[in-house]
């Protein structure tokens, strides 16, 4: 049989395998690494976590670092330095983190591994605005370099509140901590939100770039660290069967849903100002859209992929003010029931304004005005207190010609990419029901990660922290991606906060799939939301 190349991308899959054996930081391949299934260990470094006593560090970052260590993927010389306001000794900090890691770690904590891991954890008490605290930090990092062999490599993780970013960055620069010595590196990881609108995002980028270059800046969106999000590229570009169908000629429309049963919980303070559009659509959902809609990159380099992603956002159709209400529906949950239990409405939640106009649900009808996606509507919905928690992308293919069997068929072929939970891929096709007549019904072919692969996927933060340590920015958002996303979101927010002709805020009971207006968004086009 003749061997043929699956697609122009197959060469890039080879590159991917080569890249897997060579970290971005490591131009010279290690001959002993050849053939090993594991990725190279990043260079030794110190990881400084600002806001180290907060939720993110305890629930996600340190458990992720522990798991990386337990898998043997952490460099032998690594130091984790928590920077926060509260007074604590190294020992107290280690005890707190041990307790949190035992609670939140993906794998059970082993005493002997924790003992070794804990030796690399330190605590540094300082106010974020206290200049002397950063001078002491610089001194301490130098000592750690000397004692632990971390070679002057530094990764600063901003897990503090966004309003603290500016003083932290300013003082890091003043203390010279943004500078690299010969052969070492300094990087900064910034957690979302990357601003609250285009102006603030630009301002944040300006502040960051006063101290660090774009190459040193890693904007983390944990959705991109999820196995299934990464698998979108593999599904699209490693399977030749999808490539010819992935365009306006064969795709009727696309739906992206990010639903959760949880309410606002303890995040009301933040959420009241953000809302679903800023909290989810500007980052996570647009990132998923980019992976779904982007053109094949020329290679798997970070910038090649991000170049293609940003083109998608740039191609999103912008609406004049008077068309926003026609294409974007905002909603808010009222009291209702989740899993049979009564739950309060959003306005009754703790720390929420009883007259709040914040949206907890958004549905959008988008168009990507480029050659591939011309006239293919993309419907997106995101919301809290919806009937189930699920993040899924569905590609709805056009109907077969209405002759022969297809005259009475209403269902389309649908390819579903389940991001979470129960990660997997399903394809709905038509099949003849057994019998003497031609009765046709849809059937589903279903692939579940959990069923097919026994091995648990690493947590998104594990992958992303390792990538940042290795200097691989592929799964991090670039400045222009973030700014383009805000440029798309801003007109919607402005319309919602205008003085007149404000699009309506629709209410829906908790436990329902959003307001009727969201259904109308599709019904007008003769379509309906997929049943999840």
């Amino acid at each position, binding site marked *: 049989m003749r061997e043929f190349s699956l697609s122009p991308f197959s060469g890039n899959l080879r590159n991917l*395998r080569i890249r897997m054996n060579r*970290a971005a930081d*490591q*131009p*010279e391949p*290690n*001959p*002993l*690494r*050849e*053939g*090993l*299934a*594991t990725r*190279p*260990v*990043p*260079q*030794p470094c110190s990881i400084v976590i600002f806001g180290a006593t907060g939720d993110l560090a305890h629930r996600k970052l340190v458990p992720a670092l522990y798991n990386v260590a*337990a*898998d*043997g993927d*952490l*460099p*032998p*010389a690594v130091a984790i330095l928590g920077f926060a306001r509260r007074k604590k000794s190294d020992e107290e900090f280690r005890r707190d983190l041990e307790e949190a890691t035992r609670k939140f770690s993906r794998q059970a904590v082993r005493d*002997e*591994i924790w003992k*070794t891991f804990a*030796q690399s954890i330190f605590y540094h008490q300082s106010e974020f605005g206290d200049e002397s605290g950063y001078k002491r930090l610089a001194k301490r990092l130098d000592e750690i370099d000397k004692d*632990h*062999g971390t070679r002057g490599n530094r990764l600063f993780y901003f897990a503090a509140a966004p309003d603290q970013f500016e003083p932290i960055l300013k003082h890091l620069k003043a203390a010279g901590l943004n500078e690299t010595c010969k*052969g070492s590196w300094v990087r900064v990881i910034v957690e979302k939100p990357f601003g609250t609108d285009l102006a603030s995002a630009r301002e944040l980028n300006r502040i960051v770039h006063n101290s660090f270059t774009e190459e040193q800046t890693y904007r983390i969106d944990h959705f991109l660290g999820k196995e299934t999000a990464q698998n979108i590229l593999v599904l699209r570009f490693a399977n030749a069967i999808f490539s010819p169908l992935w365009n306006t000629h064969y795709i009727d429309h696309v739906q992206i849903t990010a639903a959760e049963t949880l309410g606002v919980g303890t995040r009301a303070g933040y959420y009241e100002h953000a809302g679903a559009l800023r909290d989810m659509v500007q980052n996570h959902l647009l990132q998923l859209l980019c992976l779904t809609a982007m053109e094949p990159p020329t290679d798997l380099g970070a910038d090649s992929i991000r170049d293609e992603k940003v083109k998608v956002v740039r191609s999103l159709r912008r609406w004049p003010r008077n068309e926003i209400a026609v294409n974007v529906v905002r909603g808010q949950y009222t009291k209702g029931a989740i899993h049979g239990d009564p739950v309060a409405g959003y306005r009754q939640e703790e720390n929420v304004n009883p007259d709040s106009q914040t949206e907890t649900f958004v549905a959008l009808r988008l168009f990507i005005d480029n050659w591939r996606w011309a006239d293919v509507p993309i419907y997106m919905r995101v919301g809290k207190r919806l009937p189930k928690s699920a993040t899924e992308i569905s590609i709805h293919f056009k109907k077969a010609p209405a002759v022969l069997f297809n005259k009475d068929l209403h269902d389309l072929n649908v390819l579903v990419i389940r991001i979470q*939970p*129960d*990660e997997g891929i399903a394809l709905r096709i038509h099949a003849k029901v057994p019998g003497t007549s031609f009765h046709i019904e849809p059937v589903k072919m279903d692939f*579940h*990660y*959990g*069923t*097919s*692969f*026994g*091995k*648990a996927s690493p947590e998104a933060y594990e992958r992303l922290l390792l990538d940042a340590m290795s200097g691989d920015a592929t799964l991090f958002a670039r400045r222009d991606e973030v700014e383009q996303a805000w440029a798309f979101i801003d007109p919607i927010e402005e319309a919602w906060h205008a003085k007149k002709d404000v699009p309506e805020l629709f209410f829906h009971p908790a436990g329902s799939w959003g307001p009727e207006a969201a259904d109308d968004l599709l019904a007008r086009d003769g379509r309906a939301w997929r049943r999840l």
Partner: protein
Amino acid sequence: MAPIAETYSLGLPVEIGSIDHELKKLWRESEGAMTRASLMNLAVYSEEPGSLKKNTQLMARITENHACRAIVIEADCNAQEDGVDAWISAHCHVSRAGSKQVCSEQISFCLNGGCTTQLPNIVLSNLDSDLPLYLWWQQEFHNPMDPQLWTWVDRVIYDSRPWQDFQAQMRLVESAQAEAKQRIVLCDLNWTRLDKARFALAQFFDHPASHHHFAKIKKVRIDYASGFRSTALLFVGWLAAQLNWRSEKTDGENKLQFVGSSGRKIDIEMRQRDGEPIHEVAVTAGDIEFLITHAKCGDLLEISRGKAGGKRVPQLMPAGKNDSVSLMSEELMRGGPHHVYLHAINCVRELL
């Protein structure tokens, strides 16, 4: 239903001609509560009496992480009368995804008499279509090997450690591979056994600044357990292949000398001692020693580097296990060809 609930018995006896039909019946009856999953055909062949039960137990554990159609075969090639008995069963485990049970099916065969003629047909007629065929050969290989079967094998898995005549066995495998005219990947569990130790040593040199140590390596010491000399030799072969060393001379069974590309001599000392298969590896480059040793707690490796008598910061990493289930699970996780293995073998072929 008996065959589903029981994971260690051979299950339901079936007629050879109705295996497919009986399997379909099995799944029809348990539809809803269970999901059948399969990523590969995993055929296991052994001539050891009682191996069918032993391998059924192994498959019950291997399928926890590797959904497959298992075709487990015990053969008595010297039996007077030809005959085949077959059973079907399933190994079910609760999936990570939820409460649903995920099941791998197993077809078990007891072959009597003409093994050579029966085996290819038994395997080929019971494959799950479009899935790769992994053949776990638990015997020494026979001469000649049957090309009819080998043409369809994607990966052949064996353990070279107990082989009496490594060179003869390897010749058989390689000629079968050549005859099959397709890319059969050779998967030696003796090589898999080295995976964690290789990873532990490799990570010392991930930083380009540490590459200069390669040119300074003058001594390698490997401590191995009784019966694992060939494993230690494979490790030496790996170092030699990847670092371009050439075998120079041997001094007794356990003292070897290699020459690096610059003419530098590298002394290899292999020591048998109680402990894990590869218990400790020490690589000396200049005045730095890179040390990998099994931690006291057993399934962890302690790695460190430093000058003799100097301060060291040890790090722990997974050591891997030496039992069949762990080795198979490890091997099944890996994909792609094992070129590095073949290079390693070629460097120590004469010594194995």
